């Protein structure tokens, strides 16, 4: 029971950053345990919530308790009822936060070159990852993409954390017009990256995985599946992933992920906002019976 904490966390800062809200909560227990790529599950809606399910957010950064109280930072896009509630909180309001959850980005044993790719708020966990990688002697290049400049997160921070930064936007409002996958090949080639880390929408993660494979790099992708509990008890967040034995299983992205090796994910099962169970997945046959 020592690798996870539950805290009634006080909001100590909330500020707008482009299209997002950057929130800082006091949560020393979580801050102490967390590693880059992990996430937290936040209760929303207050005392009698109509929104019962937790909302999950990547840890943007943590400041472990020292002279100051330990805090965790989240970058939140207000899209629905829960994120609207969360971003409407005011300083000194509190809510319950559970974390750190999920598996962090695996770190290379050797000081290899790496590329970090973020889409939209998906870049949030990458700066902390970048600092960690660089402290281990890894080269870090970053590619940040978004639909518009407003939805690009952390381009300035990136310059501090990375050896180089390339920015793309769908509408060309800043950086290259286009997708991260358009510029990624050149960045990998140039840095000779061995690992590409990525966080963002599914479509992007799939292309990053493909580009990485074409360039002989390993992709480590942090996925975002719809989650009801975040702690592994509900089975809503599953996706088809190949195991070491080659067999595909519907695994829980909250406990076995959110970070997966990109080449293990069965991208072929995802289409149009749904994910089917591949015919060859473990247990798929029993589903056909009834």
């Amino acid at each position, binding site marked *: 029971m020592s*690798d996870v904490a539950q805290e009634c966390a006080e909001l100590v800062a909330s500020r707008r950053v482009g299209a997002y809200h950057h929130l800082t909560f006091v949560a020393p227990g979580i801050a102490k345990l967390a590693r880059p790529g992990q996430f937290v599950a936040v209760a929303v809606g207050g005392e009698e919530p109509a929104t019962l399910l*937790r909302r999950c957010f990547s840890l943007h950064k943590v400041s472990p308790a020292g002279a100051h109280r330990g805090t965790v930072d989240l970058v939140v896009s207000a899209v629905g009822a829960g994120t609207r509630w969360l971003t409407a909180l005011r300083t000194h309001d509190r809510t319950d936060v*559970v974390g750190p959850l999920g598996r962090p980005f695996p770190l290379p044993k050797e000081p290899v070159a790496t590329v970090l790719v973020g889409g939209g708020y998906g870049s949030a966990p990458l700066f902390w990852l970048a600092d960690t990688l660089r402290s281990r002697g890894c080269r870090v290049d970053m590619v940040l993409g978004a639909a518009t400049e407003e939805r690009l997160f952390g381009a300035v921070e990136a310059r501090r954390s990375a050896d180089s930064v390339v920015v793309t936007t769908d509408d060309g409002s800043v950086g290259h017009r286009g997708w991260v996958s358009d510029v990624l090949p050149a960045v990998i080639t140039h840095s000779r990256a061995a690992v590409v880390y990525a966080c963002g929408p599914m479509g992007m993660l799939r292309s990053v995985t493909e580009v990485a494979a074409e360039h002989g790099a390993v992709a480590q992708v942090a996925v975002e599946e719809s989650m009801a509990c975040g702690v592994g008890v509900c089975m809503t967040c599953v996706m088809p992933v190949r195991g070491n034995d080659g067999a595909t299983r519907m695994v829980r992205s909250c406990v076995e992920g959110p970070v997966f090796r990109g080449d293990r994910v069965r991208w072929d099962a995802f289409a149009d906002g749904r994910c089917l169970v591949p015919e060859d997945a473990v247990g798929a046959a029993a589903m056909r019976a009834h």
Partner: protein
Amino acid sequence: MAPVDLSTDLGGVVLPNPVMTASGCAANGRELHRFVDVASLGAFVTKTVMSQPRSGRPTPRMAETPSGMLNSIGLQGPGIRAFCEEDLPWLREHGARVLVSIAGGTAGEFADVAAHLAASPAYDCVAGVEVNISCPNVANRGQVFACNPEASAKVLTLVRERLPSGTPLFAKLSPDVTDIVEIAASVLGSGATGLTMINTLLGVVIDTERLRPQLAAVTGGLSGPAVRAVAVRAVWQVHAAMRAGTLPEAPIIGVGGVRTGADALELVAAGACAVQVGTATFHDPTAPRLALDGLAGLVAAHGFDRFADVVGIAHERT
């Protein structure tokens, strides 16, 4: 003041307290144990297990609804063999009393699963078996075993034959029936020791952006505080029939929408001698513990020193 005696009798097996997890809402223990000691619960109820490994349904498998949720997991699980080899021993080692939830696509499959379970070396931690005849996510259509008294009776009869006679056997009922008392009568007449009520209500949520069902499986099961009044009603009706002598007396495990101790007390006062906490666990992984502490506090605050004295009490005060 002496502490309240929270023990409850599940039809032969006595549990130290009446609060349990709900099947499918706490996986098989390991994950929840990070937040709640599984041995501290009255019983741990496992995810419904079938004979074979199951992948479950495609995603999205869930939709949040006002004060509730809709799910279409589709009984994803490892199958009874792996369950007996890995999950049950783990629960046993950690001191849990286990209510094992089983299902089958046919009455025969139910019986096979029961037989396999009874043969497990870890069987001594089994406090009872819950027969899930009401999962809306097994069949493609809305009709489950628990919609039909004969089909339900057949399942219970076959399962009963495969279990040691001392094992309490609970039939888990669906609220999606015209007359739940009729179904209760049928299963109690066919070997069930008691009843678990309720499973989820069949529901649909439309994704209004894509204008299509939000669940890949179209229909799902509605749960959470939103349905609590339906669960309390089901327990009320069945317990009332027992009091009236039109149904044999039998223990009822109440489930549906419990988040707090007061919620649990509603089911208890309506007639449940144990309570399961399901969806609320997604809201707060310590919910079963909180409900237990809250319930114990309320029973004491009402001046009772035995939990058992509160069971069904509201029927005496209408």
